């Protein structure tokens, strides 16, 4: 998976059952790929990119569309059913 960009991962990537883990870099312009729809967007994703450091995203509860972002010592949970749906479809398409 190392040759995939994070955007590609989101579009075509793979996931384990019930939880998706994405390791990425904020601050390199790719944050928008994970941005939820307007209205559900937490401050974490808004405005300027945050410091460039690894972060982890996982689907906490697929049925509810709950996504947790782990960055630094923080965990931010928000709802993005569309993102979760895309990842689930990607998982189904993946030739695992």
């Amino acid at each position, binding site marked *: 998976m190392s040759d995939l960009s994070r955007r590609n991962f989101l579009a075509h990537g793979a996931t384990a059952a019930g939880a998706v*883990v994405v390791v990425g870099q904020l601050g390199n312009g790719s944050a928008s790929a994970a941005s939820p729809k307007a209205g559900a967007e937490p401050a974490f994703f808004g405005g300027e990119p945050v410091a460039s450091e690894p972060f982890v995203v996982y689907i906490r509860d697929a049925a509810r569309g709950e996504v947790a972002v*782990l960055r630094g*010592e923080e965990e931010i949970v928000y709802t993005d059913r569309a993102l979760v749906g895309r990842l689930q479809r990607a998982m189904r398409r993946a030739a695992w």
Partner: protein
Amino acid sequence: MSSHREAPEISKDPVADSTDVYAFVSPDRPDTVTLISNYIPLEDPAGGPNFFEFGDDVLYRILVDNDGDGKADITYEFRFYTVVENPATFLYNTGQILTIDSPSWNRKQFYSVTRISKGKRGRMKTVVLGSDLPCPPCNIGPRSTPNYANLGNSAINELPGDIKVFAGQRLDGFYVDLGSIFDLGALRPFQNLHLLNMPGAAEGVDALRSFNVHSIAIQIPIDQLTGGGTKETDPMSSNAVIGVYASASRRKAQVRDDHEHMHQSGPYMQVSRLGNPLFNEVVVPMGDKDRWNKLSPDQDHKFARYVAQPELAKLLPVLYPGVFPNLAAYTADRADLLAILLTGIPAGIVAGFQNFSGATQADLLRLNVAIPPAASQNILGILGGDLAGYPNGRRVQDDVTTIELRAIAGATIKLVDPGYTPDGAAALISDGTGGPAVLDGTKPPTNVSYLDTFPYLDHPKSGYDTVPLNVGAL
């Protein structure tokens, strides 16, 4: 053991495994309290070339509840980092380590201390008390660490606020006959009375006598810990009681990428905690131990039923037939143990003493800071008439195994149920690790040594000098 490898999950993560917690009024500085939390159980002193150290990825905490709600009001956080002087060698040290900053010591560890407390209007106040504080090296042997006492003592750091702190390897001060106790609850002094009896009484064997641990010790003026912010002198004051526990936490996520990097992110999640010795070890059943480690003490009402009807109290009459008839017949909830372990002992039970912190059930080491250090210490603590010992906090020498065995065997029921007559054995039962001296509680066991001054736990045994336990039996 007190809490060495006490739960399935944490037993696989030694650097985060809290083994013992101590809290006592410092005998040589009675205006201060010393708090100690040990980690990394059963360190074989010869365990090189990668000798033991704290986890750089573990957040260590010592927490103090001073208002009785089972939640921390004051937290001391300890974070470590490691510096490798020369990555091109496999050696821990490339020559003698004569000073704590010796260039011959290849793998040094440093840490920071942060105090977090409730500030005005409930906001948390964070103060970094010290950073880049050095740990001592492990005790390797007479060639590598020829004057270990100097190395160890030079790692005692002074912090603002008249605080002392130490973090590093120590001799494990806890003593217990693990080999016998975990062999179906056998106690060597009484093994001839066991269901599967063996002939003759024998002295206990301290299974920890040749092992080290890693200790975090901090000595703090009392008025920085109490709810009233004063050095309490009245033992009956509610502000005289503090509740102490320790924990270790790991980041919520850890990912190994394809570039030999490991990413850790997210909040720290508690993976280990410890208040009263042996609580999670022998009171909480196997299926709940990992869960217990993850929760805050204010959630301990969920485990109160295990204290009220302890499994060990039911096992003793079975394992020692005819020895505990009164205990076997006692079916009421154990109000004595609920008080000792979960709320503290209220006033009126033990003359001149209380360490009651309120109705909230929480496994905390409760220390009444207004009780001065004992002029003549009894390692059986309050059971031995010494109000400065366990379960009033816990001193490094206290024989907590014997104290808790006797309490569970019924020695303390009479405190809350005057109609109960303890079995004669309840006042005698012991694992015998102190030899004859432990029977009257007046001396610590002969095979454990301590220091008279901070950090009180003795310098660690060296790898070269330590003879493996079973050599004599071969």
